[in-house]
């Protein structure tokens, strides 16, 4: 029996949806939602296959690596695809009410192309193909930011575009070095052939620099707050939840497969930068007076956590980092949507003037608070599980100092989240002029926030998916450690 190649469907379906939206602009909503649901179905199909048969490799064109391009799906890519589909569905529903028609006919094709790029990126096993998907992703993201119009959004988009182009070139140069050293651009083949050499070091430096720039690791985060804060709310959600994660995903893959034997120093450096990001982003978020900027700086901080796994390097730490990534994606998307609702409702997002929003937009406020719980890392939430795993990994590895940023970051996050919530509990007068917020926008935010919360209660399930294809190496090490100690 011939198997349906879900991987290919995942890439082509949103692509086809984008083309249909472009061709029939009056039907964007229909095509957009069909694509969103279809992608959800394909992810489920792929997940089912992975559960039954383990990691999958698909040779596009039948050539196979190294000549052709391979698609590869294991637990890591599957989880990224699932989270993309979840956030994507939420954003799609949210966008129905958010955009007026003129923007909608541009938003939908761009968003579906972005989705296609994300899926292609998470499925690619080829570092040059990853470059193409990165470019597709970056350009679509820039176009979506610029959709907001206005001087802030335009300058932010411009900065974002330049950063993207620069980062992609750095990455491409690294690809060139790797290809010419080992004669392949396939990750698995490179992983077999790679051995430490100056070229590998240079490639690691260049590719990491490019990808860190795109993932906005401190101090390369300067472009992120303006871009994420000035984009339309659903776009902010996509950028913070998924787009920055995409480059992190590539970095993770490279780090796990190609650069494992470069020694401990680079990992420690990334850890230090991550810790700095956590603290700096938290402090900056606390200082902001506008809600969307606060959330954007919170993203800077939260991205920092993900890098704390690099110095630890154990499979448990990687999983914790990935878990944080997943829950941050859901929570942050919910948060930006909630901010979008507030912005729509009040006409501004000045935190100090958020009087009585809690009473007027209860669902939105609950969504924000619930997402905040996960961002802070309080139980029971996905953020808590991720932090717990990182804390445990750090203490097990004897590197207790990583506990400090993890905890301080949580306290800072609590401070800036409750700063917002606190303003919602004020007695100030009733707002003068308010706009109606569609119900779909409120409930989409709440659904994603609750999903982030739920991640804290069903951790075993995502954690078992992470085992498919053993992207983080065997978990036996952890099991043995555990057995020894108990």
């Amino acid at each position: 029996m011939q198997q349906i190649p879900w991987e290919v469907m995942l890439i082509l379906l949103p692509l086809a949806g984008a083309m249909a939206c472009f061709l029939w602009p009056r039907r964007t909503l229909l095509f957009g939602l069909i694509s969103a649901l279809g992608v959800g179905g394909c992810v489920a199909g792929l997940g089912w296959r992975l559960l039954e048969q383990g990691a999958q490799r698909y040779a596009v064109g039948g050539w196979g690596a190294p000549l052709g391009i391979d698609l590869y799906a294991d637990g890591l890519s599957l989880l990224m695809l699932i989270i993309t589909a979840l956030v994507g569905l939420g954003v799609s529903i949210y966008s129905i009410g958010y955009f007026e028609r003129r923007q909608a006919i541009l938003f939908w094709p761009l968003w579906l192309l972005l989705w296609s790029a994300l899926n292609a990126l998470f499925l690619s096993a080829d570092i040059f193909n990853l470059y193409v998907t990165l470019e597709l992703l970056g350009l679509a993201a820039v176009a979506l930011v610029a959709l907001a119009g206005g001087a802030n959004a335009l300058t932010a988009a411009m900065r974002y575009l330049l950063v993207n182009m620069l980062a992609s070139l750095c990455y491409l140069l690294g690809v060139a070095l790797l290809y010419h050293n080992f004669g392949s651009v396939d990750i698995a083949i490179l992983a077999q052939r790679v051995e430490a050499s100056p070229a590998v070091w240079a490639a690691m430096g260049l590719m990491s620099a490019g990808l860190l720039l795109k993932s906005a690791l401190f101090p390369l985060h300067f472009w992120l707050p303006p871009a994420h804060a000035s984009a339309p709310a659903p776009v902010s959600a996509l950028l913070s939840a998924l787009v920055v994660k995409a480059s992190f995903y590539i970095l993770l893959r490279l780090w796990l497969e190609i650069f494992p034997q470069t020694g401990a120093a680079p990992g420690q450096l990334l850890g230090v930068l991550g810790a700095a990001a956590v603290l700096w982003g938290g402090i900056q978020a606390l200082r902001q007076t506008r809600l969307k900027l606060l959330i954007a700086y919170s993203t800077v901080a939260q991205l920092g956590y993900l890098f704390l796994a690099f110095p630890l390097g154990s499979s448990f730490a990687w999983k914790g980092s990935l878990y944080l990534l997943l829950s941050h994606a859901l929570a942050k998307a919910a948060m930006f949507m909630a901010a979008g609702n507030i912005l729509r409702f009040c006409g501004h997002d000045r935190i100090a003037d958020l009087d009585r929003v809690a009473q007027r937009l209860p669902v939105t406020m609950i969504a924000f608070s619930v997402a905040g719980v996960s961002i802070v890392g309080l139980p029971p939430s996905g953020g808590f599980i991720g932090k717990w795993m990182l804390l445990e990994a750090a203490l097990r590895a004897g590197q207790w100092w990583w506990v400090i940023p993890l905890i301080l970051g949580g306290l800072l996050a609590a401070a800036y989240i409750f700063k917002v919530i606190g303003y919602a509990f004020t007695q100030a007068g009733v707002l003068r002029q308010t706009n109606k917020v569609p119900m779909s926008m409120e409930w989409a935010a709440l659904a994603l926030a609750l999903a982030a919360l739920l991640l804290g209660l069903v951790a075993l399930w995502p954690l078992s998916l992470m085992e498919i294809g053993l992207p983080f190496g065997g978990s036996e090490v952890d099991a043995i450690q555990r057995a020894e100690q108990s």
Partner: protein
Amino acid sequence: MILQWLFDSLLIIALLWLAWRLLGSADLFKAIVLFIAFGLVMALAWVRLDAPDVALAEAAIGAGLTGALLLSALARLNDLADTTHETHTPSGKK
């Protein structure tokens, strides 16, 4: 052989010199013209490196189209700069 070396060195020096000049030029128009020239020299380099396909692509896209895009953007930029104080268009949704 020596001719080959001479050609290579000339090409490389031309590339670096053009890049240096175009990136340092005070006049934007001149910079763009130099950039087009740079693209054409790049095309020569591609030919020298036995990459005729790339040479064609570079000449047509890298030098030609990008150059045209840059020139037209510069022209519109100058138009905007001339009229910007009287017809300052507040950006936003159209």
